[in-house]
């Protein structure tokens, strides 16, 4: 049974998406490699556009992974590496877009639509009961008028 479970786990492990990072790219220092993986996940492969550089087999993605690692070894901070790449490829290189005036719609648009929708629903729900409410009861004046009108009708 144990063997079967183990074999199954091995099988599942092989089916998981593997990062495109080659063994010879991995840094000797595990702490730096962890940072390289974190950065690699949030940097876009410009050729394939919707993959991170860690997931992409493209030549350019490999070059960018190498640059990230070289700069880590040279002692650069994570923000410095991001700035380095944004200077060359623009904000598009980041899969996690920064908050700017140009990206404000992207960040706040969904919340704004949610609020507008909530206001719309609130207005709709408040107005509805008023429309279906029973008409006001007749006062003595109205009643007298009504009887007069009905009496006239009977005479005809």
């Amino acid at each position: 049974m144990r063997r079967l479970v183990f074999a199954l786990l091995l099988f599942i492990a092989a089916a998981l998406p593997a990062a495109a990072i080659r063994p010879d790219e991995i840094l000797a220092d595990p702490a730096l490699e962890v940072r390289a993986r974190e950065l690699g996940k949030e940097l876009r492969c410009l050729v394939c556009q919707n993959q991170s550089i860690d997931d992409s087999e493209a030549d350019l993605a490999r070059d960018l992974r190498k640059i990230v690692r070289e700069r880590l070894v040279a002692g650069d901070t994570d923000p410095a590496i991001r700035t380095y790449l944004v200077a060359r490829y623009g904000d598009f290189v980041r899969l996690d877009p920064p908050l700017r005036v140009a990206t404000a719609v992207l960040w706040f648009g969904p919340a704004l639509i949610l609020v507008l929708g909530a206001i719309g629903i609130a207005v709709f729900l408040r107005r509805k009961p008023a429309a279906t409410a029973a008409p006001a009861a007749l006062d003595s004046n109205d009643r007298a008028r009504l009887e007069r009108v009905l009496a006239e009708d009977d005479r005809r």
Partner: protein
Amino acid sequence: MRWLFLAPLLLFAIVAGYFAVGLTRDPGTLPSALLDKPAPDFDLPPLLPGKPGLATADLKGAPVLVNVWASWCVPCRAEHPVLTRLGREVPIFGLNYKDKPEDARRFLVELGDPYRRIGVDPSGRVGIDWGVYGVPETYIVDAEGRVRHRHVGPLTDRVVAETIRPLMKSLAR
């Protein structure tokens, strides 16, 4: 409240406007991060004897085209006749990107050499400094050495007539 019935129409117009712009754009072409900024610092060795290499200093003085190419790049072959014709009008500098020098030389012997200067970038590092993400790419650099335009993909006669030539003319003034 009387005009509330127009709200869906307005909403439709807004969405249609977004689609009209968004769907006609090519998501594969990115704007250059270097636009209106000075060209990156680099100094590349020559490919051919008798033809100089390419460095940042060479980009100053007159507007030029910088064409990023490689012998392994199929669209580069397609744009080559366009470059050859364009090379008679304006100076074109070549940036040979991640290529083997002997392959690059064979490419030029076979098809002709439209470049005034060619710099060799075997590692692709200078390419990355330019923000290259696919070859061929063509940059227009003004007389002050600032990047003014980038075209991604092969140059065609239409691109030259509509974009490249008018911009080069306005920069030459």
